[in-house]
């Protein structure tokens, strides 16, 4: 059966190519759309994911790392006394306006780091050292945001929140979900840029003792400081991502586009298989006349559909790899999880399986008598 199915499939190269393009298109669309979505949504939790803290402690019901609410910094000592906490440092995140040399301005997300520990500081530095923010008026910006900030060079001055700021280092790839560039500096200077009082901050970043369970420590922190919420890194990152997914309809729009891609693939594959069968009704009639069972006929269709699915999916993944290699940038990251690739291939296989049922229904009605009436 395998040889009959495959040889007859290969014989009709035009339709085979059409079906393969359909499957390829589906797999590529699902993966690239999904990759763009996860790349985009990853930005929403990037500060948490890369911030070196095991636990994030903040205002009750905190839901987005980029949009925090002030908390009293005096509660930090209570957090530090919780068993399992190795280190806890204040951290501030807020929006300030940067005046540009052209006279324009750009809102930026100022991140203030405790200078002693530098916990939550910028990473992937391309110029400067991690402690360069300790320099007078020092700020670190991301080179992907050069255009927005009118191409600042090391040593260039900017006005930030009405105060002087000097570029002392650059990073690459630290970009948030908000369109505002991140600017890293020391905690006190950030408060000045943000016009915050000295006794408030946005978060307490906690590093736990080796072997301590983050979830258990979080529970202890909540008991010790009931006015605050605390989450392990992964959980708060997910909360921040969920904020954008659920409140903006981003998940639905990306999901709909992905579903549309799958649907197009299904239609192309089903239509191609059906056309392939319609062109060869006589041959299927002959097979039935000389004794092929219904199961054997379906096996032929199934092998053909599955072959198209497997080859199309492999080609699709190859195209996705090329697209990812060529177009993945920090601004538009394409993050393709393994489960997404396998899942899309599995879905395409399922779709092809369903698609093979349509021509089968046509063949079931086929009367082998037709070959004797030609």
């Amino acid at each position, binding site marked *: 059966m395998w040889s009959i199915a495959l040889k007859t499939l290969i014989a009709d190269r035009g339709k085979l190519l059409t079906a393969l393009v359909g499957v390829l298109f589906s797999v590529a669309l699902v993966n690239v759309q999904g990759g763009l979505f996860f790349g985009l949504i990853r930005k929403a939790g990037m500060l948490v994911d890369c911030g070196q803290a095991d636990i994030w402690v903040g205002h009750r019901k905190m839901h987005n790392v980029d949009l925090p609410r002030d908390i009293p910094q005096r509660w930090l000592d209570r957090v530090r006394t919780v068993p399992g906490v190795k280190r806890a440092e204040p951290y501030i995140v807020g929006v300030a306006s940067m005046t540009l040399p052209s006279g324009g301005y750009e809102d930026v997300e100022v991140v203030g780091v405790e200078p002693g520990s530098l916990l939550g500081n910028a990473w992937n530095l391309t110029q400067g050292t991690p402690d360069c923010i300790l320099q007078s008026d020092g700020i670190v910006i991301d080179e992907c945001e050069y255009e927005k900030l009118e191409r600042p060079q090391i040593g260039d001055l900017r006005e930030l929140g009405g105060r002087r700021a000097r570029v002392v280092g650059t990073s690459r790839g630290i970009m948030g979900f908000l369109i505002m560039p991140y600017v890293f500096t020391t905690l006190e200077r950030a408060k000045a840029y943000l016009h915050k009082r000295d006794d408030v901050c946005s978060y307490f970043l906690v590093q736990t003792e080796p072997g301590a369970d983050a979830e258990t420590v979080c529970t202890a922190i909540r008991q010790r400081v009931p006015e605050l919420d605390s989450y392990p890194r992964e959980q708060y990152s997910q909360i921040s991502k969920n904020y954008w997914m659920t409140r903006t309809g981003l998940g639905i729009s990306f999901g709909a586009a992905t579903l549309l891609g799958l649907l197009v693939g299904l239609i192309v594959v089903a239509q191609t298989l059906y056309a392939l069968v319609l062109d060869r009704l006589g041959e299927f009639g002959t*097979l039935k*006349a*000389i004794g*092929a069972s219904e199961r*054997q006929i379906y096996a032929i269709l199934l092998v053909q559909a599955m072959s198209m699915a497997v080859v199309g999916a492999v080609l699709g993944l190859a195209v996705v790899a090329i697209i990812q290699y060529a177009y993945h940038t920090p601004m538009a990251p394409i993050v393709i999880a393994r489960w997404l690739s396998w899942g899309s291939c599995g879905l395409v296989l399922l779709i092809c399986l369903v698609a093979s049922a349509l021509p089968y229904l046509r063949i079931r009605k086929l009367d082998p*008598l037709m*070959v*004797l009436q*030609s």
Partner: protein
Amino acid sequence: MITQHPPNDDDLSRHVIRVEGVYKSYGRGAGCTPVLSGVDLLVQRGECVYLAGPSGSGKTTLLSILGCILSADHGSVMILDQDLAQLRPRARAILRRDRIGFVFQRFHLIHGLTAQDNVAVPLTLRGTPARTSRRRALEMLEAVGLADKVKVHPKQLSAGQCQRVALARALVGDPELILADEPTASLDAINGPEVMSLLLRLTTAQGKTAVVVTHDQRIFRFADRVLWLENGRIVETVQPASPQPALLQTATLQPQHAGMI
């Protein structure tokens, strides 16, 4: 020439085909068109019987019933000791696959497959290992004189060669009964008799039974009997050895000629 008396038990055991009082019509109600009207037929093992007659006389319908592709409305049909009325569709398909070989007017080869693969199809359907199927197919192609066309696709073959491939396909599974529908209709004056000669040689040599529907008078000489159908009934049996069957010239017949043939 025409058997007027019913066969005894010994005769029946030798019969590959036993058809009694078969009726078949197409359509329903006022649009109902009778095609077979009480056909009786006995064919012995190793016999080569031709069904001839004018268009619409029921030849192909009778062949379809003999091939388990079509069911009779009334009457009894025993093929290879199997009562077709008792067989479910799956069992009929297995009977066709394992014990009957078909040759069609328009060859009905599968275009995506080579000649060898086409011939091997019935064995593939039976689940025969690929290597065995291909070897048997090769032997059959050699037997029909197409050893040099093994890897050729049907589109690259002439009509005569296609019909030889179809013949090889019909015979590769070593069936007991060969059913051929107008096998020479698409062939020229040279290829037609050649294919029939080949069919006769490959079937009678192994004691196989063949039923051939044909209009082609050139090939009547290859038959043991030619049964003439008119208006859904077998109206005369002709021995090809006779100089020229009268019906082939006049196609008129007295009703009393019909009976258990």
